């Protein structure tokens, strides 16, 4: 607990929150721009379209956001060359664990703000009915899981490489892979495809009427396996990162 509190103390005045919310605000601005002046058919399926578009937007932006977050949590140790000193006070494993929990809390808050904003936006635009609580909660949980797996991957890279260019380029490549995967498949076993696999709403575009139809996804067995894979990645990345970090020579 003390180590975790110290992690929050370390990021004080390092603008980590500000950075994350600045990136989130780009999403919010995009939402204000993209969902303005909805037509009647858009008002009818508004809540589903919100979930659909959030998955797309997160798929593109979040891998880089997670790379930035992990890098900010890790580079303070690289810059201060603090590993040896910290290891004399607590185990390397608990330090890694504290950083992982700290990142997880930030992710949970970040996406809570995101959901609250978009739900408020939905009400402001006059979407019919209310958001389906079950799907929104499930979507939130899956979003946390898929982005936590990415964060843990990035944390492992950021803690391992002193040169932060490597993990950040990996994050950028991940964002690109996620975006391009969206064109070719509805699920992926790759860590960057987590947001895609966990999307609860799908869409079909009718070329003649120029209207999109949104529907809740019926997960096939392979798609369910892709969702389960997100949780496997969490375990794998956490374990691999912790092992690499504890065996690392400062």
């Amino acid at each position, binding site marked *: 607990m003390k180590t975790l509190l110290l992690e929050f103390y370390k990021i004080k005045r390092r603008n980590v929150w500000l950075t994350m919310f600045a990136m989130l605000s780009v999403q919010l601005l995009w939402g204000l721009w993209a969902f303005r002046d909805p037509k009647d058919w858009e008002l009818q399926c508004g809540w589903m379209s919100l979930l659909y578009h959030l998955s797309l937007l997160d798929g593109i932006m979040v891998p880089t956001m997670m790379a930035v977050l992990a890098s900010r949590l890790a580079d303070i140790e690289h810059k201060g060359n603090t590993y040896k000193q910290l290891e004399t006070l607590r185990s390397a494993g608990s330090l890694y664990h504290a950083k992982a929990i700290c990142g997880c809390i930030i992710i949970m808050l970040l996406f809570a703000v995101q959901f609250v904003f978009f739900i408020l936006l939905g009400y402001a635009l006059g979407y019919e009915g209310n958001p389906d609580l079950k799907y929104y909660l499930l979507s939130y949980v899956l979003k946390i899981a898929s982005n936590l797996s990415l964060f843990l991957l990035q944390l492992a890279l950021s803690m391992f490489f002193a040169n932060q*260019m490597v993990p950040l*380029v990996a994050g950028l490549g991940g964002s690109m892979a996620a975006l391009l995967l969206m064109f*070719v498949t509805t699920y992926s076993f790759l860590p960057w495809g987590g947001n895609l696999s966990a999307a609860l709403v799908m869409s079909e575009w009718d070329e003649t009427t120029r209207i999109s139809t949104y529907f809740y996804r019926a997960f096939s067995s392979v798609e369910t396996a892709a969702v389960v894979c997100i949780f496997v990645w969490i375990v794998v990345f956490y374990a691999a990162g912790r092992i690499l970090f504890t065996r690392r020579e400062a």
Partner: protein
Amino acid sequence: MHLSFMKTIRAEQLKLKRSPVWLAFFALPIISAFFGTFNYMANQGVLKSEWYSLWSQHTLFLCYLFMPALIGTYCSYLWRLEHLRNNWNSFLTAPVSRTSLYVGKLVWAAIMIAAGNIWIYLLYYLCGKLCGLPGTPPEESIGWIIGGILGGIVICCVQLTISMVIRSFAIPIGIGLAGGIGGLMITNKGLGTYYPYSLYCMGMHANNPQMELDIQAFLIGCLFHFLLFSVISVVCLRRHE
């Protein structure tokens, strides 16, 4: 001025020696080209403009979303050494003008943009031939690359300024990504020439290769932002303690 300018370019070259930073400019366009070609092949019923369609598939997302962040990575890397330990002191006490110090970094960023754009074009040509497209890419495609280089240099100026002011390696990259996404909205509103992150995509004709670009407005936009951010950088450098 001339000599000190060359010295800073040489010094920056030494700092970049054996650094794998160029690999990112090599790898990301490959991913984009691979998926862009795949998408083009799968949607030939809709994408009927052959070389033009292939170009938009190759460059649309790369230019809007990833190049600004990638340029941000490179610019952060260029300032990385200065932000480490007490290197600012030795950097600022170098017997060259502050302007030269800045120009040295800008030249290398511009070289990387030019090399990256040529690589994107080569991939475009190769993929077009592999797809069985007839003839060669349209003549104006050379103009797209030149426009992209000019727009890219503007983003370099912005990102160099940000990376110089912000000590963190990661934050400028996030700003680059956010700036690129903002560019999508602003270009759509027709205000691209007023926003530096839009100039790269506009120059590359990423959104629509057949669009008529107002060359004069584009060049003025590039020049304005280039001068603005260069002046800000040099002023910040002169005031840096």
